[in-house]
């Protein structure tokens, strides 16, 4: 049975007078693997920080397992794994000491998983954390975030510094973690192919607004780019529902819809006496359309 892990209700977040997050309402349930997509500065990290209770919402509420995110207790925190964008490890101790410290502190510690990753990722246990490369620090952060097998795993651009091999190994592990129906994963990324590989839900952030939230498959089935060719000039803009983006030039227009149905196609054909061509988009193209790129 699906349990709601995160509940976001009309969330707004304002920093120094700028609205970073605008009226977001969403839910994350157990079994969800949510890919958080958005341009740089769209508000992904701010949203993640608010979900984790680091920041107070300016308006609205975020709850984790029913408790306000800013007031979650140790039991809930122990059930969260978080990989921040920048390493937040204890810098001047050895990797081995760092792992041991966390191991003593965490319940459900999976030493087999840790050993596996240390071997696969060739993490040098005796090396001081500060001397690790950025990619190796990222690997260690990921390892420490998943070693206690949390029910909620939040990763802020986890693969940005990983080499292709480590990225593939990490994604494989994430797929294994995601197979646990009790677990939920949220990860922000700019690598669309990763999203298609592991996510089942997509949140697309555009200027602080959740431009899309839903199933990945539904998104790919519902977003379409329509090319309209008419015999007479088309209006400057179409007044139709669910338009993401439109470019009109004389008798021809290219319009992207978020909820495309065949009935809409018939309506357009009849209204403008035009021919239409429907093209379903890849996730990357959807992302580009939604961000007017």
């Amino acid at each position, binding site marked *: 049975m699906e349990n709601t892990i995160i509940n976001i209700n009309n969330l707004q977040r304002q*920093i*120094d007078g700028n609205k970073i997050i605008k009226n977001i309402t969403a839910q994350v349930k157990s079994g969800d693997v949510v890919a958080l997509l958005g341009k740089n500065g769209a508000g992904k990290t701010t949203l993640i*920080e608010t979900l*984790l*209770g*680091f*920041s*107070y919402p300016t308006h609205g509420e975020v709850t984790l397992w029913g408790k306000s995110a*800013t*007031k979650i*207790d*140790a*039991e809930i*925190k122990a059930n*969260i794994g*978080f990989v*921040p964008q*920048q390493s*937040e490890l*204890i*810098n*001047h*101790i050895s990797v081995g*000491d760092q792992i041991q*410290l*966390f191991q*003593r*502190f965490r319940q459900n510690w999976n030493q087999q998983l840790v050993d596996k990753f240390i071997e696969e990722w060739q993490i040098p246990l005796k090396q*001081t954390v*500060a001397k690790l490369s950025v990619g190796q620090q990222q690997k260690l952060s990921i390892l420490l975030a998943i070693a206690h097998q949390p029910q909620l795993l939040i990763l802020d651009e986890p693969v940005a510094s990983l080499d292709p091999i480590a990225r593939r190994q990490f994604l494989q592990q994430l797929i294994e973690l995601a197979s646990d129906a009790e677990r939920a994963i949220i990860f922000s990324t700019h690598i669309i192919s990763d999203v298609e590989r592991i996510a089942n839900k997509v949140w697309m952030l555009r200027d602080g607004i959740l431009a899309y939230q839903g199933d990945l498959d539904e998104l790919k089935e519902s977003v379409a780019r329509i090319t309209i060719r008419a015999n007479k000039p088309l209006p400057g803009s179409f007044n139709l529902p669910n338009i993401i983006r439109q470019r009109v030039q004389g008798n021809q227009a290219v319009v992207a819809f978020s909820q495309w149905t065949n009935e809409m196609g018939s309506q357009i054909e009849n209204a403008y006496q035009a021919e239409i061509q429907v093209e379903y988009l890849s996730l990357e193209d959807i992302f580009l359309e939604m961000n007017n790129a």
Partner: protein
Amino acid sequence: MRNKLLRLGFLAKLFFFSLWALRLILFVGIPGAVIAIAGKIVDYGSWEPFLVVGGITLAAGSVCIYVGVVLLMFPAQLISFISSRQYGLLPYIRHYLAVLFVCILSILQVVACCILVFGIKREHAMHPSLIVAIMLIASFMVILFFVRLGSMQFFYFFVLPALGWYLVPQLKLMSSSVLAVILVCLWATFLGWWFSWHPKKYHKNLIVMNPSELNKQNLSFCWGLYSRGAVPQNLESGILFGQFGNSFYQVRMFLITLVVTGSVFALMFMLSPHDFSTGLMIGVKIGIGIQVIQVGYNYSLAVFKNINKYWLYFSLERMQLFNAVERKVAVFYLKNLIAITSIILVISFFIPNYLPLENIVFYVLVSLFITPFTLYMAFIIYAKWRGNSKVFNWINGIAMMLILGACFLGLNFFGHISDYLIYILIIILASLAVILVMRQYAKRLWQQVDLVRVAI
């Protein structure tokens, strides 16, 4: 050549740091001059000498510091200049720089020589001018040598005076012809090395770094060096204080600093032909004082940097977080203060004349006031300026200057404690009131604080 250098932004780079020093003149020198002029023009009665002398001291002191800083920075700037990527790719630049060295050192030599000759009214300028030239090139080489050592760069501040004390009396005894040979040899050695030297790319030059870069460098190197092998006692103290989450290592760090600075001072003392023992012991005393006083500072810095991580792992709401961190800092700080004070008391037992008990009491008292001040300041800056490390650095920089001032003034002041008991009581009460107000304000801000990431 001129156009080429201008295109490189040579001057801009060369004097990047001197701009920082220029601010010193703006903030201290100009007000000092204004105070002095105002003191002279307007009749302030018995306060006039204080204003005039004080103002002139401030103005002259800041100008001297500025000139000194520029002179000390100059060779260091050139090292980073030739080591940086874009300039390293340009051929022949080191030839221009060598010419520049010769020109600048010659000008400095002429100026210094004129001052020397006119100052002591000597007719034959050759002998002192050669000594000045040798000292300039030797200092220049010493600075370049230390800048290349990376993290040991700051030692040239200690080595240069020792070099002066040791070398100048020896040079005075030599004839002009021998001095001329030494000068030529030094120049030949320097230029030979300069043209064959392969600069390291991205050479880190601590001396010309801006404060935030320097802070990062300090954290990643100095703390690393001091806390080698340091493992926090547990995750809780580790996350909040990093390596300082284990008191043993804080004490070890204190001992290392004590031995290193003590050795440097001892070296200077041994090389000095004159009796500088009193001055050096005052230096040691102030050094120990700073160490004691800033025991708590490391904790405030660590809290500022790590508090958001701490929140993520432990069952604490915002106000509980405030109280827990306050308690933890107090416990760790007091443990370390007791340990460090005990060590100093032992040292004081062996050299009671140089490190009297009153001084130690004074240090501990100042430390007890400074620590809550920096901690609540860290809380306030974190909450009000969203963890702005620049504001934190500025405020703490000013606080450290005040500490230094307190060390200099307080050491003498404390000697006559019985005469000034009432003033000391007033200062203690006022400090307590300030700390209490800061605490209340920090608590108010902390109720809905954003636990932002801080890049220090």
